[in-house]
């Protein structure tokens, strides 16, 4: 398309002459002779080149200025009488590209027009480039934002497994460790991991995935699902590998919990069946006892039913505890009150089994911060075990369960639970806190001591056990009187088998 030129000149003949000359060189030309005409043309049309006599009107400068603003690409060429040329130059300075003297030299005009055309095409190119550049910037910004905000840990690694870039989440959990080794950051290792998916991707250029357990800068462990992708240079060579890890810790925990729950229900169904049978038995004895008017049988039946109901209740509570890992609800209570409840429960059990109790609860025990329900259940469980161990022992005639509580320091309470029952062999002693381990056959669930141990542990306490087969066992439980501040977990974590 030919360039469009506006000639602004008060001298009509001069203008016409210029027009005729310029049109010969394939430009489209319009002439404006008055300021109004010029203003009108500039306001409503867009021009490539303006050839102007600046002294047409006083407002000419402002008029050209606004035209330039409206279309920065417009090229202005000024022509003037020799004596006014200097003034024109002072006025327009570099906003005009050429200053021609009247009478206009045709060669000078040609050159000025060619220069103007060159300028225009150059400017158009520059505009295009800068547009592309800003688009590119925008695209890069967007990609960068995406990279940063992806809800996965992303790192880019070189052949030595050094991290060259990472996204926001990665930095949050693993630190801003550009240049460090991946295995160091993720796993606190000093050498490359086995079966590294990044190494495999460097090898074959394909995407690989693994499941890993990584450790954050705060020491927390996460299960992550890791996928890799190669990053190639212009020649198609793999220079880096991107690793994207999705945190699936919660899913895994849930899965583990479900697995162990299933395992528990499986292992306990036997016990449950036994209890239900015993319940059937109790009911049968009760019914037949009533119809035969056999008081002894009725009496015995009611005892059996009660005992079985208690067992079922205990087991259900244990299952509920296990199925629902709940938080500890700390409350400050008098140690004496806590212990009193425990003692009253165990007294009836001991009496029924004809086991003597040796209880020592001094007055100076003070207060303790615990989850009352769980701590009571724990102490009762340990004492019940002591009673059971005595009942099972047929070698000794007299059995005694000792329950001594003392304050060993300002912030520690010591519970001793001791029996002279059957004691434990080494295997039982080693395994007693293990989930589902029981030495009581179908009478035990394998949950009691497991839970007791956890409760003590999550109160910041410790338990140690001395036991000799045939002689008896002693449990020493040490509990802090205040809720431990620095204990990381105040919630029962789900069991990971």
């Amino acid at each position, binding site marked *: 398309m030919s360039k469009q030129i506006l000639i602004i000149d008060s001298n009509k003949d001069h203008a016409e002459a210029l027009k005729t000359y310029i049109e010969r060189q394939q430009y489209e030309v319009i002439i404006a002779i008055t300021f109004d005409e010029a203003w009108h043309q500039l306001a409503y049309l867009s021009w490539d080149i303006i050839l102007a006599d600046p002294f047409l009107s006083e407002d000419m400068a402002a008029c050209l200025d606004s035209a330039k603003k409206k279309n920065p690409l417009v090229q202005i060429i000024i022509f003037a009488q020799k004596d006014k040329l200097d003034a024109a130059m002072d006025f327009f300075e570099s906003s005009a590209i050429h200053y021609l003297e009247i009478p206009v030299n045709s060669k000078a005009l040609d050159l000025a027009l060619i220069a103007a055309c060159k300028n225009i095409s150059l400017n158009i190119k520059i505009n295009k480039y800068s547009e592309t550049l800003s688009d590119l910037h925008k695209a890069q910004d967007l990609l960068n934002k995406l990279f940063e905000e992806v809800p996965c840990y992303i790192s880019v690694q070189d052949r030595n497994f050094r991290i060259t870039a990472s996204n926001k989440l990665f930095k949050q959990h693993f630190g801003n460790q550009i240049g460090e080794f991946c295995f160091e950051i993720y796993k606190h290792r000093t050498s490359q991991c086995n079966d590294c998916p990044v190494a495999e991707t460097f090898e074959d250029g394909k995407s690989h995935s693994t499941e890993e357990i990584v450790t954050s800068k705060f020491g927390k462990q996460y299960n992550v699902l890791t996928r890799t992708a190669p990053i190639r240079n212009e020649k198609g060579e793999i220079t880096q590998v991107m690793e994207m890890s999705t945190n699936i810790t919660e899913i895994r925990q849930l899965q583990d919990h479900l697995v162990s729950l299933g395992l528990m229900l499986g292992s306990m169904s036997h*016990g449950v069946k036994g209890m239900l*049978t*015993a319940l059937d*038995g109790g009911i*049968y*004895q009760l019914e037949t006892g009533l119809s035969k008017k056999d008081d002894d049988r009725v009496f015995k039946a009611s005892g059996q039913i009660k005992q079985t109901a208690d067992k079922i209740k205990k087991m259900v509570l244990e299952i509920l505890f296990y199925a629902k890992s709940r938080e500890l609800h700390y409350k400050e209570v008098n140690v004496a009150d806590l212990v009193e409840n425990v003692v009253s429960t165990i007294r009836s059990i001991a009496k029924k089994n004809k086991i003597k109790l040796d209880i020592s609860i001094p007055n100076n025990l003070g207060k303790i911060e615990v989850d009352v329900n769980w701590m009571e259940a724990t102490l009762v469980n340990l004492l019940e075990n002591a009673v059971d161990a005595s009942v099972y022992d047929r070698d000794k005639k007299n059995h005694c369960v000792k329950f001594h509580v003392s304050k060993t320091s300002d912030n520690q309470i010591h519970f001793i639970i001791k029996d002279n029952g059957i004691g434990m062999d080494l295997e039982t002693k080693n395994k007693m806190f293990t989930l589902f381990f029981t030495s009581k*056959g179908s009478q035990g669930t394998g949950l009691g001591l497991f839970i007791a141990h956890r409760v003590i542990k999550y109160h910041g306490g410790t338990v140690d056990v001395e036991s000799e087969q045939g002689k008896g066992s002693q449990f020493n439980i040490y509990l802090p009187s205040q809720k431990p501040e620095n204990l990381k977990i105040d919630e029962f974590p789900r069991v990971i088998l």
Partner: protein
Amino acid sequence: MKKKILVIDDDLNIRDYLVSLFNDNGYDAYVAGDVKEGFNVAKKNKPDLITLDIELPGEWGPRFYRQLSQDPELKNIPVIVISGLSGHQYAVVNAVASFTKPFDRDELLKIVKETLI
């Protein structure tokens, strides 16, 4: 003369239940809480039928059955398995019947009666 049944189970309440059930239905009943005791009682009283639990303290029910079937005096005594374990019917292959706890009382009595004719 009354037929004799030996009940082998480690749960006292269940033993009591079975003994009452058998006594009420015209049988004499003996009890044992584990394999060793069970074998001794069987030797001594020569029962006509044995009910056997699978999971017992120490040695398990199938072990008792093997010992029983190797004893010329006792090997023909019929055994009924009563257990809480699933899949126990394969544990004692030649058992007359297998019951899963909690068992149906009438069904058990029916089988016992049929076996002891």
